[in-house]
């Protein structure tokens, strides 16, 4: 299998469509025949990140790079940036507004969930410019 590149745009403030890109990526991974656990972990991590893009930034872009060994997803937004990444990584810490909480998100589990389901996460954030999250999911168990 060659490396497959996929691109999705995420619209700002469109909570109805949030998750559309993650769902498409999930179905594509399933179609390519990846293990259900790999598909699910990728889908959940990207979904949380996509929701964050809609809540905190003005949308953004998702680029996935799929190879037999690993799935790498880069989520780039032009939002306000994250002032304190270690604080944002803490379970239960949230800056989401009340209307987002009413929709079932903003429990402070977004970034912790992304970290939990990914094998590697890099967060590159600049205040006033935006945030880029790069997550990697290994598709095969590490060889001993």
């Amino acid at each position: 299998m060659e490396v497959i590149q996929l691109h999705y745009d995420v619209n700002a403030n469109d909570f109805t469509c949030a998750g559309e890109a993650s769902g498409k990526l999930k179905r594509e991974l399933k179609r390519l025949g990846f293990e259900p656990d790999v598909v699910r972990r990728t889908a959940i991590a990207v979904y949380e990140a996509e929701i964050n893009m809609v809540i905190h930034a003005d949308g953004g872009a998702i680029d996935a790079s799929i190879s037999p060994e690993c799935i790498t997803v880069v989520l780039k937004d032009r939002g306000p940036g994250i002032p304190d990444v270690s604080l944002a990584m803490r379970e239960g810490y949230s800056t989401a507004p009340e209307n987002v909480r009413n929709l079932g998100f903003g429990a402070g589990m977004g970034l912790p969930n992304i970290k939990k389901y990914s094998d590697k996460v890099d967060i590159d954030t600049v205040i006033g410019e935006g945030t880029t999250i790069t997550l990697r999911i290994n598709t095969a168990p590490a060889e001993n």
Partner: protein
Amino acid sequence: MKVRDIVDILDGSIVFGEDYLDRDVYRACGSDMMSDVLAFVKEQAVLLTGLVNPQVVRTAEMMDMKCIVFVRGKSPDIGMIDLAQEREIVLIKTDLEMFTSCGLLYAHGLRGGSGK
């Protein structure tokens, strides 16, 4: 337990998914916080919730869930039904409250995830 058993036990009604009632389900979770649902993946096939918005269906989709039960008499809107139809997820509604719904299903053999 089959999905159709859930309808009987909760005295519920089927909003969508008549064709999928013979699916087997063993585990469930109940929550109005979707991020909490996403935090614990343990093959739960059923989501019980009082929350009504498209992200409920999308959360179930990401988790490979087979059935969503709306408690406290909540009804999904047409957009959610369309989404569930595309994803082949059964939608059930019941007038029972969350606690009672979970308790009844547990008493009939459905189990929760095993946590972290």
